[in-house]
């Protein structure tokens, strides 16, 4: 007996500025394609249903839960994952701030928070604490109580981190 498996689909997409041509399963999520097909395991799965934000990536500039995007939807799209945050060997200020402020403990949620935080600052360089909290409310962290995460993002917004 064999399972009827729909054929894979060629996917041409840009990930972290690099062109990718992947063969993805039509029912595969973008999260699975990033991890299993592109080998980018920095993006994490915490729940698989949009509830935790650990799978957050920027899709055409906007933060989305990659566990709720089908891989073939990324056709001709632009994706940025945590692996693409540092540019030319220079860390994103958020990456520095998270390290310096102790905004990560176990670190499983960190890639998702960094992407959500990047999106906040991209749309609003000087967010209030409330705006920051709203912008990361779709990301669960169980280790930090969010205090140091919020402070790290505030530090970047205030230009305290280069």
């Amino acid at each position: 007996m064999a399972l009827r498996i729909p054929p894979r689909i060629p996917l041409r997409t840009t990930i972290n500025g690099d062109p990718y041509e992947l063969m993805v399963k039509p029912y595969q999520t973008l999260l699975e394609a990033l991890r299993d097909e592109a080998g980018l395991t920095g993006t994490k799965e915490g729940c698989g249903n949009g509830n935790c934000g650990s799978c957050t990536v920027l899709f055409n500039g906007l933060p989305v839960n990659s566990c709720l995007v089908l891989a073939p939807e990324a056709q001709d799209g632009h994706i940025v994952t945590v692996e693409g945050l540092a540019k030319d060997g220079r860390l994103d200020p958020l990456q520095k701030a998270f390290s310096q402020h102790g905004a990560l403990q176990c670190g499983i949620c960190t890639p998702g928070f960094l992407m959500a935080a990047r999106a906040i600052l991209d749309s609003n360089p000087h967010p209030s604490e409330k705006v920051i909290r709203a912008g990361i409310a779709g990301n669960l962290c169980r280790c930090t109580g969010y205090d140091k995460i919020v402070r790290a993002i505030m530090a970047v917004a205030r230009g305290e981190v280069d």
Partner: protein
Amino acid sequence: MTGRKEPRYVGKRVIKADALEKVTGAALFGADARLPGMLHGKVLRSPHPHARIRAIDCGKALELEGVKAVVTVADLPPFEEAKAAFGGELMIDQVHLRKLTIAHDKALFEGHAIAAVAATSPEVAEAALELIQVDYELLPVVENALDAMKEGAPLLHEDLYTDTLGERPKAPSNIASIIEGGWGDVDKGFAEADVVLEKSYETQMVHQGYIEPQACLASVDADGNVTVWVSTQGTFNAQRQLSALLMIPLHKLNVVPLEIGGGFGGKIYVMLETLAILLARKSGRPVKMVMTRAEVFRGTGPGSPAYIDVKIGAKRDGHLTACYAKMILDAGAFPGSPVAGAFMVGFAPYKMPHFKQEGYDVVTNKPRVQAYRAPGGTAVAFAVESALDQVAEALGIDPLELRRINAVEEGDLMTSGQKYNRIGLKQLLERVAQHPAWTQPSSGPNRGRGLALGAWQGAVLTTTAQVIANTDGTVTVVTGQVDVTGTRTTIQQMTAELLELPLELVKVNVVDTHSAPYTDLSAGSRTTYTMSVALKNGCQDLVAHMKRLAADLLSHPESKVRPEDVNYSNGRFWASRGSEQPSVSWREVAERSRTRGPLVGQGNSGRLPPAPTFAAHVADVEVDQETGKVRLLRYTCFQEVGKAINPQQVEGQMQGGAGQGIGWGLFEYYFYQQGKLLNPTFLDYRMPTALDLPMLDSVLVEVPASEGPFGARGVGEVPIVPPAAALANAIYRAVGVRMSRLPMTPENVYWALQEKGAGVTPRGHAPVSSSRGS
């Protein structure tokens, strides 16, 4: 290694050793491991909370193309060693762990593993699960501990007899054990009291809520050597369990730690690992297994629900005369609820002339609980600290004052009856009394402030580390102690401090079970405390070795330097007499290990007394009288931490623990109906989001522990103990209702308000599994 100096690294906010790996996405967690040719494993779980398994037919599943192996209980090697206790925080015996790993004759909870499949893709494995036919005979469900204890309740285990200190009972029961503790004569104490308060409390099953689901990868080579990559709180612990379950000697079983995406007590016993190894063995290929979130909720070990009756007597001047608690803790499907933890915590901060507690460990048709940060502590503190608040009110004494009057000091008794060594509860409470979080008034309608204390004694166990002097003058610390809370960083700090070497020269390597000697698990707030002692011993050992080499280097043919005459400080070995050349550098000595043999300091924590810790939390809330919703306005955690090796990480522990405790207090619970979990998602199992919490102010008070080179205490667990009670007390001050059941969801607060306002019977939106008070 000379006398006390101003510390260079200890007490500093050193950036986490693993920060860079984690902010770049490079760190490898449980689900990130992969091997060529690996298969994907999936678990068939019981949809029924209680059922006899009449037959399992895997025939069709095996016929599916791509399926490489199916395992059931029949694949477990026969059980040999009777009742091998594992010790530690695990509290599960071997027979039960086997039955928990994979159902034997009965499924005992919804989510109990029945069979597992390995296939060439996750989708084939999933499809195969649906082809496995299980013939279940449904049995009546035992939903909660109170029902379980009733006469004639359906039995989970026909061979479970209540363990009391007396003789063995005649009939089996769902009560696994009854324990008692205390001193004096509580009846006498209550008779002497001016005020006696008696009340019952209830808490629900909750989950640790680590964001990383359980995951592992197992591989078996042609010689039968097994390697498992896994995120776990203790690799040696996992290794011992697997060895016992699968009858594999330790030298053929290697457990490799991956980054752990949160554990909080929930990643202590093996689950998927056993099945993955069996599948890998049977298929001859590596097998990877990852749980879904729903599986995590249903199939792992959550935190224990509790029913707690408290009775407290006090004199008019506030002195306690007697304290009593009866605690019924639900262990889920197999014995081992954290009654002992609850015993340790509840009344620990207080001097009590007369004291008694009784504990019941009870089995029900729910997942077998595991430890959850200060296991047992949050529930019992919710009860005791709420009750004390009422005693304070009845006596007209300020709640902080009442606690100060009764606070324990060195020499007073711990709940175990042993004496406290150096503790800092008085200093902690003094700090609270002076802090604006307490002194500034909380004002406004429907607003109130609550205070609660928490205690945690901490586990001790044994910790090992090896300190290796590399030939270029750098130092590697090798340990099997997995880093759950930032210990790589604190090990680096402490080692550099102890060796008086620059921080950058020290690297910490957390290795697998075949690359380091045994060390106990990372849990129970024990890691930093015991590690500080292991490192002190390891560094002393290393320096002693090096002094011998240094002595040779400093000697001349005419004047021989003896090792006892060599001093070490700040990276140099000095001859105190008898040599013309005054010193050699660390590096010069280390270089000699190329020809003179290994320079390794063996560090072992040995036997240590506990280093108890205390916390006091202050919560300001506002309650919406019309909806019952509680809004947190301000939250301050005070904690006595001994010595904060890394204050930033200590604050992180305090804030994380407080966040979990607040979630437990306000939102979180397993919603069961007939033994089936109705909220196995993060949408309906509501953990706090960033919008639900304010900044969590942390105030560290340092009273050094009596043991250890720096006076560090375990700080990780106690912060989850006070929050629920602090919130309950704040809600009372805000709107005048005493919440006796967790969580204090808007609906539960709403009904409590209705009851107070109009004498309406509360219809608390109780989880269906709880039968009291609803």
